[in-house]
């Protein structure tokens, strides 16, 4: 049995108290895996991983990283603990050069290590080397995503967590990003990602969860999930509605 890196148990989280968006989700990520979280719009996918990264207040449940409880850790300590997060949008500092974007993330490395580490990133992402003096705001969408991922990887995270890395990218870049993630996994980094583009994500993923209404409803091996009729149903909503759960605060009008 492979070793669990990230263990999320019964997580409830949301921006406003009493209005949870994530409603008791549990997922695990094993060492070396790519795990994909899928689900229809508004299912709480982004909120789930943002809560894991310390960006959405958690009202219940636990997040364990390598067995260590990181549930209440402030966002800026997450990279130190080994969890690196790549947001969907605004994921680079637009008025800083590519190189400064990388350097700023080196804060937790030893000073002597960082130049070498930055060179390693350039080796992995040659496009960035060519643009090292360009302000990140001038990069194309795909290059920005690349930079954001490089920025997250630079500190040797145990888990790389990505929020819809393909969103808003043209098809060419979408396939490039997924190839990149595949390569990153081969280098030994564990990956958890939320993705709208299910087909492409399942192609590189090991396992996947389908999140509906803030809770995981289906779990499976990525390669077979695509043909699973349950998934299409969960997506398009032609399903018996499970509307009894959790939303006690919504009863205002009905009572």
């Amino acid at each position, binding site marked *: 049995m492979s070793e669990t890196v990230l263990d999320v148990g019964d997580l409830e989280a949301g921006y406003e108290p009493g209005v949870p968006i994530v409603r008791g989700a549990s997922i695990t990520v094993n060492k070396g895996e790519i795990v994909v979280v899928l689900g229809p719009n508004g299912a709480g996918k982004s909120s789930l991983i943002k809560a894991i990264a310390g960006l959405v207040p958690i009202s219940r449940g636990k997040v364990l990283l390598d067995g260590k409880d990181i549930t209440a850790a402030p966002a*800026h300590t997450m990279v130190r603990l080994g969890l690196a997060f790549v947001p969907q949008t605004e994921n680079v500092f637009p008025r800083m050069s590519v190189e400064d974007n990388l350097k700023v993330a080196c804060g937790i490395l030893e000073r002597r290590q960082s130049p070498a580490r930055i060179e390693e990133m350039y080796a992995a992402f040659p496009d960035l080397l060519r643009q090292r003096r360009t302000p990140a705001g001038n990069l194309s969408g795909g290059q920005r995503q690349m930079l954001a991922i490089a920025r997250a990887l630079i500190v040797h995270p145990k888990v790389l967590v990505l929020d819809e890395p393909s969103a808003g990218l043209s098809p060419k870049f979408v396939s490039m990003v997924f190839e990149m993630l595949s390569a990153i996994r081969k280098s030994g980094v564990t990956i958890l990602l939320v993705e709208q583009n299910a087909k492409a994500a399942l192609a590189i993923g090991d396992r996947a969860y389908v999140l509906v209404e803030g809770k995981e409803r289906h779990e499976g091996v990525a390669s077979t999930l695509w043909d699973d009729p349950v998934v299409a149903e969960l997506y398009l909503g032609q399903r018996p509605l499970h509307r009894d759960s959790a939303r006690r605060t919504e009863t205002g009008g009905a009572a």
Partner: protein
Amino acid sequence: MSLQFIIDGLLTGSMIGLGAIGVTLTYSILRFSNFAHGDFMAWGTYATLAVVGTISAMFGKVAPITPFSFGWPLIVALVVGVGLTALLALLLDKVLFSRLRKQEQAIIVVMGSFGASMALRSLLEFIFTSRPTYFSRAIQIAMPVGFGIRITPDQIALLLLTAVLVLGVHLLTTRTQTGRSMQAMSQNPALARIAGIDVASVVRVTWVIGAALACVAGVMIGVLVQIRPLMGFDMLLPMFAAAILGGIGSIPGAVLGGLIIGLAEAGAVQLIGAEWRAAVSFIILMAVLIVRPIGLFGVRER
């Protein structure tokens, strides 16, 4: 018109510019206009003055370093004063600003700084009275440097000091990890946290740099003009105007804005009289707000 106004303008501009760096940093990183910044200037100056007084009480009268009007006590006192001003800023942040920031209404923080400004200024008046004082009453001979321009050794020293400080702060903010963290915070605080930047320490550095430069600017005013409790408050409008003219968040912009306003003020003094000096900043401020609110080097806020 005599070209002397260039020297006067550069000197005034240096004082405004050094102050404006603090204003622009507070605005871009802590996201509020600090009306108490001028009072950091005044407090720094009086702190320096007090240390000078202590030194002369301990060591007796110390001869000035020729050709300047001041001796080593002022240099030592300035260093101590810078430290004390930084402490004051950090203390004020701890008891007031950090708590007001939690209320998540930028304008409440501005109001708090306004109250703090009044209290700080009046406290100075209480301790030192509103009578002006001086670091030194020695009269310096200004040396002619051609084109009808004259300059004193003190003035040369202070212009050089400004240049060194601006260069230092510029290098600090562009070439060091601390500086990059500050830039990152001003561009995207949420992403900065994700990238592992400790917000609290960036906030501290911001206060320390702003307060330290304010203290130096204040001591410059003290050496070249005079020391009054209101000295910082009177600099507030020129400093805000310089920060906005240069573009909020830009350190070179703040300095350039300061120099432009300093030169404009000095020019106006020659053309229409010293009494209208303070109106210059206002006119420049309004012009910038109407024509190009993002300033010279500013970036549109999203």
